[in-house]
């Protein structure tokens, strides 16, 4: 197990280096990139005015990113500053340190993602049981039909349709802003519904195959009812593979928040990133890209570790199936 964790951590470091290198060189290749500024002609003031920022901020950037040094020094300082959490400032928010900005906005995004996953998992288990108990019945096929619709449509289309129905026509839920738990309902639902679609289908199929297995027949033969079979035997065996199916959704979910927060006006990191991208705030883009990839890698690692604990077979190959 320890070897498995060490191996995965090593892969994570490699992935981190690749992600940071690619991000760094893309930023350097961007037209008018701040990493390629000519500081000789006109000095700091000219560089600052070409970036449309104050000379003080420009000075801070030069120190932060070593703009007067060769690329490997720049790259190293980028990675080192990220790892040691010296993120400096960004162009759009010159008065707020980036670390503070992330500290303020990231919990909102992460909270949104975690609540959505939790809602999705519980709803999927419930729907899966509902459908699997009456295999091929009307309840089963209609639940699964709705689930298929859910898998097909991305979160942002669900979001606008929910906003239209519950916010505009029924006027029961707020569609924009962030002033309380009520404002979380529609974003969470729109992120959760596509995941519920695919997870509940998975749950149904694995429960049905468990219900057809011989150990379940044995339980029935010994006088157990359907409730006991599902609760004490079949459900446990179906939940283990569900962990791996949740894994890839978490990465997608983190990306989903980038679009959903903008639609609902939630002040999370996703919205900050989307704005930074459309306004070409390169320092902020660089840091948040790394942050997101680290979070996604950690979550994938966590999922694989949980699965490794639950299912010893996976420790040999190092990867969970279904990824």
């Amino acid at each position, binding site marked *: 197990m320890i070897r498995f964790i060490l191996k995965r951590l090593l892969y994570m470091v490699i992935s981190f280096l690749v992600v940071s290198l690619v991000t760094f060189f*893309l930023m350097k290749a961007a037209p008018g990139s701040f990493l390629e500024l000519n500081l000789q002609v006109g000095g700091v003031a000219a560089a600052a005015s070409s970036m449309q920022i104050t000379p003080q901020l420009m000075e801070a950037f030069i120190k932060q990113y070593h703009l007067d040094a060769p690329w490997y020094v720049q790259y190293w300082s980028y990675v080192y500053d990220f790892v040691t959490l010296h993120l400096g400032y960004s162009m759009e928010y010159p008065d707020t340190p980036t670390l503070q900005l992330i500290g303020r906005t990231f919990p909102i995004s992460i909270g949104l993602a975690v609540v959505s996953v939790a809602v999705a998992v519980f709803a999927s288990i419930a729907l899966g049981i509902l459908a699997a108990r009456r295999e091929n019945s009307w309840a089963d096929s209609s639940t699964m039909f709705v689930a298929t619709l859910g898998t*097909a449509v991305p979160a942002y*289309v669900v979001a606008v349709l929910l*906003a239209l129905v519950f916010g505009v026509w029924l006027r029961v839920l707020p569609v924009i802003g962030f002033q309380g738990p009520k404002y979380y309902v529609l974003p969470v639902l729109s992120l959760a519904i596509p995941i519920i679609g695919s997870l509940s289908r998975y749950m149904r199929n694995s429960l049905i195959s468990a219900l057809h297995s011989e150990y379940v027949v044995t339980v029935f033969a010994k006088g157990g009812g359907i409730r006991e079979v599902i609760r004490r035997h079949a459900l446990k065996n179906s939940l283990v593979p569900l962990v791996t199916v949740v894994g890839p959704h978490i990465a997608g979910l983190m990306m989903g928040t980038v*679009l959903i927060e903008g639609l609902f006006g939630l002040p999370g990191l996703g919205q900050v*990133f989307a704005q930074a*991208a*459309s306004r070409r705030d390169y320092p902020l883009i660089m840091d948040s*890209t790394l942050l997101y990839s680290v979070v996604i890698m950690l979550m994938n690692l966590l999922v694989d570790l949980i699965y490794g604990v639950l299912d010893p077979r996976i420790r040999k190959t190092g990867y969970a199936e279904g990824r």
Partner: protein
Amino acid sequence: MSSPKDLSVIASNRSPLLRMWNRLRGNRMALVGGGMVLLVVLLAVFAGWISPYDYQQSDFLATYQGPTWKHLFGTDSLGRDMLTRILWGLRSACIVGFGAEFVELTIGVLVGAVAGYKGGWVDNVLMRLVDSVYAFPSLLFSIVLVVVLGHSLWVILIAVSATSWVGMARIVRGQVLSIRQSGYVEAARSMGASTMTIIRRYILPNSMGPIVVAVSFGIPGNMMTEAGLSLIGLGVQPPTPDLGELISEGQQAIFSYPHLLIGPALVFAVTLVGFTFLGDGLRDAFDTKSKR
């Protein structure tokens, strides 16, 4: 529905594609999905002929009109016909959806086949690369690419396919690994067939099933990424209509003119549902293990 067991007995000595078609024919949902996909593709290809107006033509006397017989989906803030814009938006979605899938297929099959067939350190290096790309925050990476390289159609094709080819590479590698050990590949190798010939003639045709299924799910996935990009203003350059941009415009007018949102959102949703039905059907048709 006729019993699928009989069908497979009749078809078992025909080509895999024919066998697949026979199974697909019995799946009503897949046929509906296939019909929807075909309709969308036709609408996209012939958008220029079908659409009643020019997508740039504005009419300031007819702004924000609700649906009428003249404008079935109403008109937008500049009096442009929404039906026309939606049709052209479908065209953008299809170009990026199919185009990016072609890129993914090319890279993914190449990397996956070489990694799976060569094995050893080649496999190790390629799979580490695939894992690294897998760790990329996909949408963020697409956003960064568009920010850096600009909004042209080619950049968007690259941005959409930049991270999604790894899924294809993994599928192909898994297929190749299992087929490589089969008797007929060994026979071909013993008769002196080259690596490329074995991959092209024997391995790829036999791993067709999962690849076709992955393609049918990949195309709507690309459409979602592309529309997502243009939702935050990083899509195909205006005035070329785009479904994501239309949805974003409609969302801003959600309280005052909901018809601007309903049209594009529903058309996009129906398109994606069609692809999903078809993909589900294909998966069932290719899955020889679970005969329902």
